[in-house]
């Protein structure tokens, strides 16, 4: 069985949540933009929700901003990848493939810019990718990486969804994850016709694999010069 929730992420989160609930300090639900716009005044100041004491690069922080920043980090990675794929096409890239990658690039940039705009002063900084492991001249390397990124994105959103407290944010995450799943299925079909929901990503119950933050970030970090930590969720880079 593949769809595991690690003890680390689940346990820590639950302990925190229980503490907050029992302490009567449940987070107030505030409109996205109300918070985002009020925090524009904080430009240039480290957002309070972020843990700047961590030694492992940038910490996503905790609470809903932590999860949204986690998504923002992954979208930055995906957007940077497709921008590079389109800017330096491998030799023999078909028109169909070029159009496919260009459109997915638009979607990922849209996700990235959305999080950046919505999070405003609470956003983590722009990250610097490290794509030295990817051969952008090789179709095989590019498509394999695209497949890995899309599958990872789906697993990340599905695995972190339950950590979101605000129903509005959860819906937005849901709006994005299904588009990532559409990308993933498409890329997989390009590699092998019929592999849109392969056994490596969908279990025997027909459930997509879900991964914890602590499982996803070490993989994402191998493609990032600026490392990401999630000390509240059991992972420090």
């Amino acid at each position, binding site marked *: 069985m593949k769809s595991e929730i690690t003890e680390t992420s689940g346990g820590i989160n639950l302990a925190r949540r229980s503490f907050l609930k029992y302490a009567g300090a449940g987070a107030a639900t505030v409109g996205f933009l109300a918070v985002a716009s009020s925090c524009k005044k904080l430009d240039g100041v480290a957002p309070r929700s972020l843990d700047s004491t961590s030694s492992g690069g940038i910490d996503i922080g905790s609470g809903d901003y932590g999860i949204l920043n986690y998504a923002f980090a992954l979208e930055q990675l995906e957007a940077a990848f497709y921008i590079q794929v389109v800017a330096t096409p491998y030799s023999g890239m078909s028109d169909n493939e070029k159009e496919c990658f260009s459109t997915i690039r638009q979607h990922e940039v849209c996700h990235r*810019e959305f999080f950046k705009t919505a999070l405003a002063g609470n956003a983590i900084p722009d990250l610097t990718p490290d794509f030295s492991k990817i051969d952008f001249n090789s179709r095989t390397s590019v498509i394999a990486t695209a497949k890995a990124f899309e599958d990872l994105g789906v697993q990340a959103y599905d695995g972190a969804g339950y950590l979101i407290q605000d129903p509005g944010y959860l819906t937005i995450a849901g709006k994005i994850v299904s588009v990532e799943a559409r990308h993933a299925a498409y890329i997989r079909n390009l590699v092998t016709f019929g592999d849109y929901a392969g056994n490596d990503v969908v279990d025997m119950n027909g459930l997509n694999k879900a991964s914890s933050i602590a499982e996803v970030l070490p993989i994402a970090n191998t493609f990032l010069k600026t490392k990401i930590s999630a000390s509240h969720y059991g992972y420090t880079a």
Partner: protein
Amino acid sequence: MNLFNIVEEIEKVDPEFKERVSPRRDAIKNITSFGSKVAVAALPFALGSLFKKAYAAAPAAASVTDVLNYALTLEYLESYFYNQGTAAAGLIPASDKAYIADITDDENAHVKFLQDVIKQLGGTPVDSPKFDLTAGNGSGNGPFKDVLTNYQTFLAVSETFEDTGVRAYKGAAPDLLGNQVVLTAALSIHAVEARHASAIRYLRTIRGYEEIAVWINSTAGLGNDTGIALVNGNYKGEDNVMQGGVDVSKLLDSNGKPIGQIDAAAAFDEPLSMQDVLALLVGSFIVH
């Protein structure tokens, strides 16, 4: 349902609740520590036994089983559709049999999974309603009357079911907020429905039936990009570009130009409420 609220509420009237379910007063922690040992799929069973242990046959909150029964109803429809399609001689070409069989297997697995979860939560799985795949409300003579004899129609209906399924799970997700196990499972099914939607759209294109993207390319004022006007209602609102108060069509792409309507709408799938989904399906595909 919020599981943590429920536990809190129970504790108000029964201070010994945690003592009942765990002599070491760590029952809540146990819910997740199971996670390291068993799959998500098995966790509802653990949850179900937690409540049963405390209150013999006490059912879980109705709202969660209601949501799960709603999901089960949609899965009954999808599973019936693919099983009928698979059984219809000469409908699915040999080249696509394995492709469609994988989707069929997933939908059948979803039915079984949801039935099991509902039972384990102390609820009763709903029975399958009667279906009319022609969308004729039992007449068998609806607008898609050649659905089991014409592969193009079959794929068109399939695409609508999958895209609508994605919207339905997305619409129901907030009702499961705070319930780690059930919400994660629902999100995991949601992602698989989106993979199916992508797969069917891809198939329609490469078989030359309809030039269509694997994501939903809505134009302003029309969410439906399928070329089937009859299902406009199933795509209503997919053209939305406002996300969390941000007009994402105006955000700039990597060339410094506005992302625009089509890509902005395609980058986000939209939810449909349970009420909307049932209004679309009951009286057409689901016999009233």
